[in-house]
C-alpha cells in the first residue's frame, strides 16, 4: 500500500531523477564464503522513502545482503553506494558511514552491561559528539515513541524480547540514519510480542523512513511494503509489489516457497 507522496517519488525516479532518488544502490554485487557463492550478481536500487521487503528461503543470502549494505560483511565484486557515495574501506570513514545506516538484528543485541538509556545514547555521544544531556533528552523521546520510556533505567535482560527489540529500534533511530535495515526483527519473538514491534515499524514506514526489511511477516509486507524482493540461492529471483507477489508470483521458486510458508 504505497502512500501518495511516495507514488510521486516513484514515478519521478522512473523518468528524470533516477540517480538522485536512489539512496542505496547495489551494482553487480558478488560475495563468496570460501567456495560458497552467497550473493550472485545482485542488482538492487532502493529509493528514498521506499520500504523493500526481502523474502526467501533459509540460506538464500538475505542476512548477507543486509550486512553487506553497511559493510559488516565485505563484498568480493561489484559496488554498493549509499546516497551516491561508495562504501569506504574499514576504518574511521566506514564507521561514519555505518552511523548513517541503522541496523536491527534478529537477536536484538542490546549492550548487556548498559542501561536502556545508555544503549540509546552511546552512539549519539561517542559517534556524533552530542552532549550527554541533549542525547538523553532525545533518547527519552525515542524510547517514549517506541513505548518503553518507563524502562529507561533498567538493563536489557530485565525487559521482554518485544521491549528489547523496540529499544534496539530506538537505538538505531537515535543516530538519525538515512536508511534502516531489519534482519528478521520478529523471528526471535513470542507471537504476542510480534505485533508491538511491527506496529513501531509500520509507523516508521509511514513517516517516510527508507527501510530494508527481511521478514516473512506477510501482513507487514502488505501494509507497509512498497516492493518485495524474493531471493533464492544468493540471487534476486523476483521483484514485485507485495500484492502481486503474494497473489500471483511469477517464478517457480517463489511459487514453491509461498506454497510452503502459506501451508503453516
Amino acid at each position, binding site marked *: 500500500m504505497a502512500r501518495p507522496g511516495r507514488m510521486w517519488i516513484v514515478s519521478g525516479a522512473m523518468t528524470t531523477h533516477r540517480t538522485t532518488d536512489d539512496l542505496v544502490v547495489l551494482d553487480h554485487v558478488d560475495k563468496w564464503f570460501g567456495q560458497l557463492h552467497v550473493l550472485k550478481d545482485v542488482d538492487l536500487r532502493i529509493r528514498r522513502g521506499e520500504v523493500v521487503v526481502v523474502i526467501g528461503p533459509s540460506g538464500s543470502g538475505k542476512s548477507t545482503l543486509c550486512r553487506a549494505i553497511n559493510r559488516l560483511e565485505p563484498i568480493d565484486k561489484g559496488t554498493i553506494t549509499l546516497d551516491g557515495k561508495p562504501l569506504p574501506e574499514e576504518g*574511521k570513514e566506514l564507521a561514519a*558511514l555505518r552511523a548513517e545506516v541503522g541496523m536491527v538484528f534478529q537477536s536484538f543485541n542490546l549492550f548487556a552491561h548498559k542501561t536502556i538509556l545508555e544503549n540509546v545514547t552511546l552512539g549519539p555521544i561517542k559517534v556524533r559528539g552530542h552532549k550527554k544531556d541533549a542525547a538523553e533528552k532525545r533518547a527519552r523521546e525515542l524510547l517514549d515513541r517506541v513505548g518503553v520510556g518507563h524502562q529507561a533505567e533498567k538493563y536489557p535482560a530485565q525487559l521482554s524480547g518485544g521491549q528489547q527489540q523496540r529499544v534496539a529500534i530506538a537505538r538505531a533511530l537515535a543516530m538519525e540514519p538515512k536508511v534502516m535495515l531489519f534482519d528478521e526483527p520478529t523471528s526471535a519473538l513470542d507471537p504476542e510480542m510480534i505485533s508491538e514491534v511491527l506496529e513501531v515499524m509500520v509507523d516508521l514506514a509511514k513517516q517516510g523512513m527508507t527501510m530494508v526489511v527481511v521478514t516473512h511477516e506477510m501482513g507487514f509486507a502488505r501494509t507497509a511494503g512498497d516492493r518485495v524482493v524474493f531471493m533464492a540461492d544468493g540471487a534476486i529471483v523476483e521483484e514485485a509489489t507485495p500484492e502481486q507477489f503474494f497473489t500471483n508470483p511469477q517464478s517457480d521458486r517463489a511459487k514453491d516457497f509461498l506454497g510452503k510458508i502459506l501451508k503453516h
Partner: protein
Amino acid sequence: MDDVTSEFDLVLQAFWLTIQLAALSGVVSLVLGTVLAAMRVGPVAPFRLAATTYVNVVRNTPLLIVFVFVFVAFPNLGLLVGTPFLLKGVVAVSLYTAPFVCEAIRAGINAVPLGQAEAARAIGLTFGQTMGNVVLPQAFRAAVPPLASVLIAMTKNTSIAAVFGLMEATARMRYFTNNSADDTVIFLVFALGYIIIVETLSAGAWGLERRWRVAR
C-alpha cells in the same frame, strides 16, 4: 621469635615492598595485557602477529629468565641502567604477567557474544570505541575469576625479586631464617603475610563478581 617481634618494622617494610611491587606490577600487567588482547583480536594483521608471538614466547619462558633479562641483559644493552631495583622488578614481573592477563582477557572477549560488537559497529563506533565501550567492559566481567588467579600467582612471583637483591618479603624471611633458631615460626609469619595479601585480592574479585552480577 624474638627476632620477628623485635624487628617487626623490618617485616612490615618487607611486606610493604612486596605490596608495592605487586600493586605496580598488577596495574602495569593489566594495562599491557589488555593492549595485547586488543591487538590479538584486532583487525591489523601485524599487530595480531606481534602480540601472538610475544604471548607465546614469554609464556614459555621461566620467570627467572625474564628477571635475568631485565636485571642483567637489559643493562648490558644500555636499557634500564639507572633504574631503581623496585622498578626493574616491576618491569620484569609485568613483562612476565602480561601474557597471562592477555589470555584471561581474550577468553573473556570470546565469551562476549559476537552480536555485541556487531551492534556497536553498526551504530558507527570505531574498532577502538567498540572495544573500549562494549566488548572489554563485558570481557572484564567474564574474566574476573581467571584474572584473580593470574594476579595471585603474580603476587607470589614477586618473591623472585629476592634473588636480585630486592628486600621484599621472601628475601627478608631468608634473612631472618639465617639468623634465628625458630625457622618454622618465622616461615609461618611470612606465609600468613602472603595469605593476607592474596585473600584481599580474592575478596576484591569476589566483590566485583557479585556487584556485576546484580547490575545485569
